[in-house]
């Protein structure tokens, strides 16, 4: 165990990176998911088709591929653009943090689209009618009736999406993100103990998963506080 002695703080900072990726990708994932769901539920056939393509493409493509494509692809585009301005430039790098975060948000967002869509459809039509009858505007109905009810329905599968985000973070290490896997790699070259080092990575991720799961369980209980016994 002393072999880990010098590495705890490196692992800590790696874990912080995992946390940062989580919060950024969570926000983006919600945005992508809501946009996709609203597109699918809208009256525009074009929007429906685009959202449909979005879900099919990103649910059928390996996550690692999307990460690689976004990272190398954006580097190619940016380099090309930069070379227009300054032909001396050989290579423009995109920070792996952002390439990776956006990649996993897009991917999990495609699953979230389906989740939100189903949840929106699950809102009681009666509640909507009641809101209209009370004279609430469309926007007010959306904000005060649809969204809260939709969240309650979406929460269990949404929890799974959050867990996916946590675990997909490990993939970003492949494009060089300095999180826990990366730390482990360095530690191995020094200590020669790959098992130990990767187990620590696993334990850190397990810790994150546990926290997310507990949070979701708490949120579900909170959401149920007004519905238990209501039927």
């Amino acid at each position, binding site marked *: 165990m002393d072999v880990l002695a010098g590495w705890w703080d490196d692992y800590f900072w790696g874990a912080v990176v995992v946390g940062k990726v989580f919060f950024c990708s969570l926000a983006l994932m919600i945005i992508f998911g809501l946009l996709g769901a609203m597109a699918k539920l809208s009256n525009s056939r074009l929007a429906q088709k685009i959202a449909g393509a979005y879900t099919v493409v990103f649910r*059928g*493509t*390996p996550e*690692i591929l999307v990460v690689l494509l976004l990272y190398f*692809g954006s580097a*190619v585009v940016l380099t090309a653009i930069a070379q227009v301005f300054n032909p001396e430039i050989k290579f423009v790098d995109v920070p792996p943090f952002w390439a990776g975060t956006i990649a996993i948000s897009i991917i999990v967002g495609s699953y979230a689209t389906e989740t939100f869509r189903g949840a929106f459809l699950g809102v009681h039509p009666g509640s909507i009618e009641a809101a209209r009858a009370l004279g609430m505007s469309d926007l007010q109905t959306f904000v005060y009736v649809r969204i809260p009810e939709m969240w309650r329905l979406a929460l269990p599968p949404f929890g799974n999406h959050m867990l996916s985000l946590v675990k997909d973070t490990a993939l970003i290490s492949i494009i060089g993100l300095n999180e826990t*896997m990366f730390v482990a790699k360095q530690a191995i070259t020094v200590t020669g103990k790959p098992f130990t080092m*990767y187990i620590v990575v696993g334990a850190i991720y397990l810790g994150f998963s546990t926290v997310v799961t507990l949070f979701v369980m708490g949120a579900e209980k909170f959401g149920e506080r007004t519905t238990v016994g209501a039927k």
Partner: protein
Amino acid sequence: MSFDLQLIIESLPVMLMGIGITFKLLVISGVLGLLLAICLLLMRISGLWYLNIPAQIYIYVFRGTPILVQIFIVYYGLPQFESVRESIFWPILREPTGCAILALSLNTGAYVSEILRGGVLGVDKGVLEAGSALGMSAHQKFIYITTPIATRLALPAYSNDVISLLKSTALASTITIADMTGIARTIVADTYAPYEIFISLAVVYMIFTFGLQKLFGIIEGYLGQYTKRE
């Protein structure tokens, strides 16, 4: 910046050479994972705490950690131990393919066991009671009532997991396996053409996914015959 169609035409056949490995990883890990899942399921519903708790812990750990980490632990980590290097399993564990199959099986087994458990819990209690009232033993009820109904209930979620497994096989490329993704990455490294290569590869995976969905659709239709009123 142009889209090099010629490159795609040249590269696709090369990438498709890896489809055999992708398929092999998918099928072997899928089958082994399913067997493991059934064992875990039986442990979970046995009612015996010394079977239930270890199964729960196993599932919790394997669903709570990234598959990539699990692959690295098996491939890079296990050789740390002399007992592993000297065991009879070493010829398998030394090879990246063996390690990938092991890690993928252990991982999918955990997910599938929960899916199967969901199916078992979904069986109508009343129908099981009818079985009890008729005098069927617990064993008989499980085989003749629970299993057929639970299988049909679990199928949609299971098909999703098989598709996830397909996507996870791409991670084998990170431990030097020359599956479709592995070959693609080599080509991209040489040609600096990520768009053409990765996008065409993504299309291949999407076609593969579509095929799996159609296959499961057929199976679901066959198993669900008794649910149609017609």
